[in-house]
């Protein structure tokens, strides 16, 4: 592997971090996981490193999300305020607020739709996405169409102001 893994690193690492970030929503954690995925690739030397990396990364992010969900349940019990506060107009212009809205919109997608959308956005081809998700290649386009529509609708229904800001 090694030299081609170095190439894969150069071409794929930022996309992999972004992919993970949109799952764990913590940049440092996303880096941790991406690094770990690459270390595993160094050890395992998979035949198709790129696809392999995304599979491993997706699995790690899922484990991570389960853990986070458990922790969140505890926190929710402690939190007095409702979590779903409408952002103020100033916040809306804020990157962080918009990021959060996209995150909330993404959360409304089914796991499969979200996965396919994020994999496509990470630069994987339909073939790679099909191989990874078990979908037929012809179903990838349909899934992407649905995922995109739901994302846009979910984001749009969040707040009128945001739609203007967009």
């Amino acid at each position: 592997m090694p030299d081609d893994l170095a190439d894969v690193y150069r071409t794929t690492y930022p996309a992999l971090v972004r992919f993970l970030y949109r799952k764990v929503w913590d940049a440092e954690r996303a880096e941790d996981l991406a690094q770990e995925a690459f270390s595993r690739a160094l050890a395992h030397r998979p035949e198709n490193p790129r696809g392999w990396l995304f599979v491993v990364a997706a699995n790690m992010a899922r484990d991570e999300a389960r853990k986070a969900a458990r922790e969140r349940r505890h926190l929710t019990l402690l939190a007095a305020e409702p979590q779903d506060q409408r952002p103020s107009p100033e916040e809306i212009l804020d990157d962080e607020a918009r990021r959060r809205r996209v995150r909330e919109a993404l959360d409304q997608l089914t796991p499969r739709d979200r996965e396919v959308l994020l994999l496509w956005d990470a630069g994987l081809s339909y073939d790679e996405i099909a191989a990874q998700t078990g979908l037929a290649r012809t179903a990838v386009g349909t899934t992407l169409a649905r995922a995109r529509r739901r994302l846009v609708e979910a984001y749009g229904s969040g707040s009128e102001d945001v739609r203007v800001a967009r």
Partner: protein
Amino acid sequence: MSHVDEGTLHAYLDGELPAAERAQLEAHIADCVPCRERLAEERGLIERADRLLALADLPAGHTHRPAPAPVESLRRRPRLVVPAAWAASIALAFLTGWLLRPTPQTTGNVVDESKQIAAAVTADSPVPASSRDAVAPATRSRASAAHRQPAKASGDSLAVEAETSVVPVLKPGVVENAGRPALRGAAPAAIPPTTIAARPAAGAPGYSQGQPAEGQLERRVIGTTWTAIAAGPARKVLGTDVAQIPGIPVRDILQNPLVPGQVMVEQEVAEGTVVQLLQSAHLDTAMMAYSSGGSPLQKTVGRLQVRISGPLAMDSLLKLLDLVR
């Protein structure tokens, strides 16, 4: 052709529709106003979705960490290597026993003798390099690169393949310490047992000034095994003196076996904090080899590429790096 479904439209817009279908679709669209309008709608949808996803990108100013290489790699795995050595020794014991198995003519004495040999080999762990040579290559499926020493490569491979679940999180500033003085945070590597044994403790007094360990130190740097060399040969490789920071002990001088004229000096600033100076007879090869990481903990000073890593906080490391002139 009936109206085009949205999945096909998206595949078309994504450039993922096979040629035959694409031609069909384009022919249909040319005549079908509703489908043309839908195509425009779907294009707008894709653009909006892409814009939304772009909003959910990493925070501005986020810098990616360097690879688990390029200068990966100093990771001790004694607990992985030792079992591999044991496996090899057990296999050798069986082999010895089989080779010395009693034939119908032999007496009980011969059997005893073979048992003794087998026991001696099994008890001897880590296995001598020669026995690993005999056993390990057979267990490898990967072809050994020509520049690697067989014993080294096989020990390395065993160690690597033995690893299934123990994976480090590589992060500048986090040191992995496997019972030895921590050397570097950003780095997994398989150092074969013989290499560990032959190496003096890093940072030990007297281990300095361009005298790398005798015992064939090698290090993997993005899949390439760098070999330790002495200062003299390194000067020959570079055609000039090997650059180093005065007053800091040189831990290793390593040579890139694949790129001619490339040498890396590792100096330990403090325990666990290492400065690496990549020096090249040709400036561009150095740039090429190291451009992939893009780490903030890396900078170029003249013809040198300097990287730093260690168990300190990022800003401390950055300050240290700043001191390097």
